[in-house]
Structure formats: C-alpha cells, structure tokens
C-alpha cells in the first residue's frame, strides 16, 4: 500500500507541477480569475447596491446567499450526525467497553485557570457579537463571530468543567438555537418570496425595513448573518461536548 501511494503521489505531483507552467504568476492583476466580469462587477457595484463595504461579506450573504444557507445546513447536519454517531442513548459508548482500565475524569479545576478564564469569557463573547455586527465594514461576519462565541463556551468547559458550560447552554437548547438559525435564514428568503420577489431577494424587503433599497439589503444581510452565527456557535459547542466525553456528556476533558 505504501509503495502504491508513493508512486501515485509522485506521478500526480509531477503532472500537476507540469501543469503549473501555465498558471499566471502570483499577483497578476490581469489573470483570467482576476479579470473576469463577475469579479469586476462585485468590486465596482457592491457599495452602490448594498452600502456594505466589506466585499466578502456582501458576496457571501447577498450575492451568494443561497450557497451560505446550505453551508449553514451542512454545519447543522454535522451536529446531528455527531449526535447520531455517539450522542444518542443507543449509540453511547460505555466507560469500560474495550477500553481497558477506566480513566479518572477529574472536574477539580485549577483556581488560577478558572479565575483567569472567567475574566476572558465575557470579553470574548462581547467581541464575538461585535465581529458579527461589524462584519459589514471590517473583516468579520457571521461565521467568524459564531466560531468565537462557540469557542467562548468551549473555554468555559475547559477551565471550569463541562458541567459549568452545560448549565449555561444545554444540549437541547443548543439544537433548538441551531435550528432557529437556519429557520431565520430560510425565513428571510421565504419572506421575500411572499412579498413577490425571488427567494433571498433582499431588495423586496424594502417595504419592511427602514431606509432605501440598498439599506434594506444591508439590514437583511445582518439578519441572515445572525442566523448563521446562532447555528455555528451552538453546533461547535455540541461537537466539542460530545467529542470530549464520548457522547455521554458526563465528565469533561
């Protein structure tokens, strides 16, 4: 197997390196990828259309919003998948199943670590909310803020024990919030369909949101980013909680 893998890798690598002769040099502004009319349209027209200065957020949440909705669904399905593999009662891995001696899971947390992390967690959560909300004007957006928020719960679990984190965000609440995030995203799309436009066509939501058409697009982007943030936060925490305890959420890492 190793010989086959080595030969395959060498041959494939040689073919790809030979093909790299035709790639444009790094930094070429006139390369086909950079010169494409779609890319130029996004750079030139985004601020006029949506009043959002961060091009990546605008393309992610508005021009390619359908893509992002299904990406959120993928994250949610991964959470459900982890639940199905190790989280539900019939799938839970027992303590002494093929594992030899049982381990001692201690939940006694170190005082310095606990108190330091208690200072960090609220600041981290506030920063995560800022990243979600300010994603229109600076690097950020729903995913980045959602991951930061989820990481704050993971930090709480690492420093004070998983029970502390589960007291604040239990598994059932996590899944409800994750589903709510997707419902919020798809709900915005269905609402715009109900008002006469296409699915996820934010321009027709101008009737319900303050400001002109471009501001309506900006506000709807914030709403869908919040939905993405909900899902990503809770599912990342669920992934960590299930992986750290082999599904039974009894004692933490």
């Amino acid at each position, binding site marked *: 197997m190793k010989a086959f893998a080595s030969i395959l890798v060498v041959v494939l690598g040689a073919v790809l390196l030979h093909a790299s002769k035709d790639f444009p040099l*790094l*930094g070429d502004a006139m390369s086909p990828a950079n010169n494409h009319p779609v890319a130029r349209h996004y750079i030139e027209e985004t601020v006029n259309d949506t009043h959002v200065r*961060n091009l*990546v*957020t605008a393309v992610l949440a508005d021009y390619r919003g359908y893509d992002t909705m299904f990406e959120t669904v993928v994250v949610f399905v991964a959470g459900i998948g982890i639940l199905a593999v190790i989280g539900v009662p019939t799938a839970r891995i027992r303590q002494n199943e093929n594992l030899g001696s049982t381990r001692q899971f201690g939940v006694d947390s170190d005082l310095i670590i606990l108190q330091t992390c208690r200072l960090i967690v609220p600041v981290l959560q506030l920063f995560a909310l800022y990243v979600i909300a300010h994603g229109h004007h600076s*690097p*950020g*957006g729903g*995913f*980045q803020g959602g*991951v*930061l928020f*989820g*990481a704050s719960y*993971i930090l709480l679990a*690492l420093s004070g024990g998983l029970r502390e984190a589960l007291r604040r965000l239990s598994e059932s609440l996590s899944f409800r919030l994750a589903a709510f995030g997707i419902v919020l995203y798809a709900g915005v799309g269905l609402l715009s369909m109900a008002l006469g436009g296409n699915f996820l066509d934010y321009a027709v939501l101008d009737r319900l949101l303050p400001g002109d058409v471009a501001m309506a697009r900006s506000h709807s982007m914030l709403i869908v980013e919040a939905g993405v943030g909900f899902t990503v936060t809770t599912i*990342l925490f669920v*992934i*960590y909680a299930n*992986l*750290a305890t*082999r599904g039974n959420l009894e004692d933490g*890492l």
Partner: protein
Amino acid sequence: MIYVLDFLLLIFLVVAAVISLRLKDLLGASMVLGVYSFLICLLWAAMGAVDVAFTEAAVGAGVSTVILIATVYQTRRISKD
C-alpha cells in the same frame, strides 16, 4: 505582498506539515497541526485575504485543534506509525 516573507512562510508550512505527519505522539502531532494552521493564516493575511485568515485562525487553529486533542485524549496517545 512581501514576496520574501511569503516564500519563508511556505517553507515553514511544508516543514510543519511533514513534522505533523511523522510524529508518533498524537498530542504533539495535533499541536503541530495547530502551528500549521497559524502559519497558513499568516500567509493568507500577508496575501490580503483577511476574512479567510480570520476564519482559519478561529476555526483551524482554535476549534479544530481542540477537538483533535479531545479525541486523542479519548483514544490512544501514541500511534504505531
């Protein structure tokens, strides 16, 4: 875009990837994968892809490393190859 910085980071990147895959201690391998994620995040930030770098720093160097270490903790720490 500073080309020399770019080139150095690429060399470190390849070295980190090879080390991560050759360590027998899986805890060390996960940590070096975290280093690899940080280096590639720096590379993307140097190339101007700030959103991608932000996401990789949060996801790759943060959550991904933590869940990998959690799994190593629950299974075996030393691998045979």
